[in-house]
């Protein structure tokens, strides 16, 4: 069968482009239902307190208030991102006896009008008894620190407030350091920054008299939300339907179950009316989940030629008041260390620690940006000490095709070396590095620097729901409907899945209708938070399409009296290769199928999961177990300019050379890279959620300072192709949407050092920190 690709690998325009550009696309908050009530959440003003009493009577009596709920109205089931014997679910849906952070939900109201709901909140009387607090993780870990959350796992250590621990290692770490020619130890810290999705969190819940709960919610995966809602509300999964809604960005911040989702649902169940809860932008900054800040301590030993011999890590995740994804990030952080370079002797300890801050969550890269910033900064410091250039030291240690990782994963085709070489060549890295020249002859105090950052990321992995299923059904006229649980959160999921159908069945994009992300009408999907849409769901789509193709060919072979090998698909027809007049349209084939195959229409189903040999996901505690069939690799170069008098720095140019396997849609891939470059420069230079004793100081776009159009960096993307798409065969792509914040962040850190000789161990690289590093201020 010929493998000429018409759709996969092409710059196919987004399917949902017209809907979005005309304002027709409906997001959760655009959903209007008859009789809909407005819900609001009452939030704790204390970072830690006992709830002595809640009196909702005055609120209930207010005209227009239809329901007021507290934890007494719930079934008391706790939830969490991870719920295992080691890490039992520790989050109440509404705070019960105590509040653990400022912003925690204490009650909720539903009223006929927003103003009434607001007033009702003010009428709820809560009596608190403040308790001792702790906000700093290292203080929180000290024995005797105030206890934040009694949800301790079975971690036996003389440390306090441990939410979780991951340990891993191989080889002989002490012997490794003994063999090394040069050993250095460094500490890095990443800061609190946030997703900044433009669409605020919102949920509409509508509980019907027949016991069916309908939900629209801004999320990153409807099946995960359904499970959590069903469990916490005590409803069977089949009675909870999460509908499709367009999503205005997620970046990791919309995965967990949120108070407003649970409360909207419960309020609807209580009132029998639809309830909409929208978080204000301020609430998102103050009470919702931001990206996990990590403290990373690395001790590395190398040979004089730069070969890594031993590496030891201690990583502390500032989890906040609940475990959340905190116990996952300390596992993932390990994963993002071991992918890129070979390290024969290794020891890793990761702690997730409770504090009285709002719980944190995954943010694009989920630990990878923080880790690569640390590892790559230290590697440059080592290279400088040894007199080796940054390119050489990376080439020396880079993983190669076919290497088996310590957890048993095979990296398969690995283009990392090519990525590094191409990145260096394309940017003329070695010509520029180390010169610290002015940006141009006349620019005076502005210095330019170049830096490189290497990273590796996993593609799809096992975590509930673990697999994706899809269905392709052919309509009578030969067009097709694709049913998939996949959710497009802006990355272009719907478009690339249709491209795969188009390719497998030689249809035009206009011939494919996609019905997606509805837990009732579409099959299960892994969700858009595990970097697996193109690889896992894509393969499921391919399998479903293949079944359709096989049925088409089978009937055609019979009807045309040809053998299967002689048939080709072209333009919604099956024809005999070389005799195009001998053909049958898909429309005809569907009719024939009904006639000749006992009334069966032409449909296909496809299922896919990764790491098929493993029953479930690897151990979060020990890292044992395989977790991915596909590793992405990249080398990214950043060129920055730094004003040595004001410390103001900017990213001028970003080059991403990535082993993506192959791109399904180059325009969408570039879009992902541009967005990640922007996020990285924001993380590096401008963004920070500033907190004081559990409260947020800058809960607005203006003061959080995300990149504006003024901060656009030139972003170039070069694909290193290590895989290919073959019609009818399983393919391997590598993720492109999460892992590339990391390399640019790391490259920026190294570029700033190259520009001005200031090595920063803490993000963000604020102008003040740069000036301090230059000795211009104390």
């Amino acid at each position, binding site marked *: 069968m010929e493998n000429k690709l018409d759709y996969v690998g092409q710059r196919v325009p987004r399917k949902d482009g017209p809907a979005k550009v005309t304002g027709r696309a*409906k997001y959760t*908050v655009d959903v*209007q239902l008859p009789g809909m009530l407005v819900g609001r959440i009452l939030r704790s003003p204390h970072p830690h307190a006992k709830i002595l009493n809640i009196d909702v009577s005055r609120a209930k009596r207010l005209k227009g208030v239809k329901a007021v709920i507290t934890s007494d109205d719930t079934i008391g089931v706790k939830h969490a991102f991870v719920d295992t014997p080691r890490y039992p679910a520790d989050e109440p849906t509404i705070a019960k006896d105590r509040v653990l952070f400022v912003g925690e939900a204490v009650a909720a109201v539903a009223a006929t009008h927003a103003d009434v709901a607001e007033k009702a909140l003010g009428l709820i009387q809560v009596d608190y008894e403040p308790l001792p607090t702790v906000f700093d993780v290292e203080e929180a870990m000290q024995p005797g620190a105030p206890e934040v959350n009694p949800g301790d796992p079975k971690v036996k250590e003389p440390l306090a407030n441990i939410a979780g621990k991951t340990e891993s290692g191989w080889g002989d770490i002490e012997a490794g350091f003994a063999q090394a020619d040069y050993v250095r130890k460094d500490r890095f810290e990443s800061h609190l920054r946030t997703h900044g999705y433009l669409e605020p969190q919102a949920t509409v819940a509508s509980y019907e008299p027949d016991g069916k709960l309908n939900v629209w919610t801004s999320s990153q995966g409807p099946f995960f939300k359904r499970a959590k809602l069903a469990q916490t509300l005590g409803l069977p999964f089949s009675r909870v339907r999460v509908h499709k809604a367009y999503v205005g960005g997620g*970046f990791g911040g919309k995965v967990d179950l949120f108070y407003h989702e649970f409360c909207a649902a419960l309020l609807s169940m209580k009132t029998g009316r639809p309830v909409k809860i929208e978080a204000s932008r301020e609430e998102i900054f103050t009470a919702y989940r931001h990206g996990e800040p990590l403290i990373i301590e690395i001790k590395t030993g190398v040979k004089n030629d730069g070969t890594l011999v031993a590496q030891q890590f201690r990583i502390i995740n500032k989890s906040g008041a609940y475990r959340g994804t905190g116990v996952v990030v300390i596992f993932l952080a390990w994963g993002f260390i071991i992918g890129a370079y070979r390290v024969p002797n290794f020891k890793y300890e990761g702690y997730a620690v409770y504090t009285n801050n709002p719980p944190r969550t995954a943010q694009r890269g989920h630990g990878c940006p923080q880790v690569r910033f640390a590892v790559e900064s230290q590697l440059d410091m080592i290279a400088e000490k040894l007199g080796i250039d940054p390119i050489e030291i990376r080439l020396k240690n880079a993983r190669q095709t076919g290497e088996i990782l310590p957890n048993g994963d095979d990296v398969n085709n690995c283009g990392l070396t090519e990525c590094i070489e191409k990145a260096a060549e394309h940017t003329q890295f070695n010509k520029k590095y180390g010169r610290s020249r002015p940006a141009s002859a006349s620019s005076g105090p502005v210095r330019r620097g170049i830096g490189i950052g290497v990273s590796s990321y996993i593609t799809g992995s096992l975590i509930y729901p673990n697999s994706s299923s899809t269905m392709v059904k052919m309509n009578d006229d030969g067009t097709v409907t694709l049913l998939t649980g996949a959710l497009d959160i802006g990355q272009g999921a719907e478009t690339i899945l249709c491209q795969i159908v188009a390719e497998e069945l030689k249809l035009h994009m206009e011939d494919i209708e996609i019905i997606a992300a509805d837990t009732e009408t579409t099959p299960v999907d892994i969700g858009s938070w595990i970097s697996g849409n193109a690889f896992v769901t894509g393969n499921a789509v391919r399998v479903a399409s293949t079944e359709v193709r096989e049925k088409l060919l089978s009937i055609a072979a019979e009807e045309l009296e040809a053998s299967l090998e002689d048939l080709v698909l072209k333009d919604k027809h099956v024809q005999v290769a070389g005799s195009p007049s001998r053909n049958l349209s898909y429309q005809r084939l569907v009719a024939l199928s009904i006639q000749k195959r006992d009334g069966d229409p032409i449909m296909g189903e496809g299922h896919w999961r990764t790491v098929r040999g493993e029953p479930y996901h690897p151990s979060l505690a020990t890292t044992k177990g395989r977790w991915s069939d596909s590793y992405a690799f990249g080398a990214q170069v950043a060129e920055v300019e730094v004003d040595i008098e004001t410390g103001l720095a900017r990213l001028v140019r970003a080059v991403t050379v990535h082993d993506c396997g192959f791109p399904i849609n180059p325009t*969408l891939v570039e879009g992902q890279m541009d967005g990640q470059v922007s996020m990285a420069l924001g993380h590096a230079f401008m963004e920070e959620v500033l907190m004081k004793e559990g409260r947020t100081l800058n809960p607005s776009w203006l003061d959080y300072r995300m990149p504006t159009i003024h901060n*656009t960096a030139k972003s170039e993307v070069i694909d290193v192709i290590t895989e290919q798409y073959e019609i009818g065969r399983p393919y391997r792509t590598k993720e492109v949407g999460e892992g590339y914040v990391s390399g640019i962040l790391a490259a920026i850190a190294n570029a700033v050092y190259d520009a001005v000789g200031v090595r920063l161990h803490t993000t963000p690289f604020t102008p003040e920190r740069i000036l301090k590093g230059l000795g211009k201020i104390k």
Partner: protein
Amino acid sequence: MKKIIELSVNGESAEFLVEPQETLLEVLRDHMGLTGTKEGCGTGECGSCTVLVGDRPILSCLTPAVECHKQDIITIEGIGEGNDLSPVQQAFVDCGAIQCGFCTPGMVLSTEVLLKENPNPQEKDIYKALEGNLCRCTGYNKIIEAVHKASKQMVAEQE
């Protein structure tokens, strides 16, 4: 005290009974069902609520509807003709300048205004015109490309 106001939205006039504190954004979305205009913050910092009032790009989340009495308002639903996209809209689609789409209506309206006033904008003009429209997905690269593309298209159409 409620007031009766007359708004001309996307070329069609209608009367509304509104409270003074109801914003234009609320009237567009809740009274008229025109949900294309979005609330990204409610305090004028992100541009998602941008509409055109008498040719000016303004933030509907900070505009009481009563102050738009008898004004001509254009929302994203009023851009393009029927099912045909405007050159700006088409350029956004063609260049991959849309990802999650939430900032898109506001971004398109700001671009329409820019190109009307300045058919051949320099990079710095584009920055000044769009600095009030935040985008988290695209990094702005392809949005800038789309503005240039639309500009070329519109200049060509004039000739």
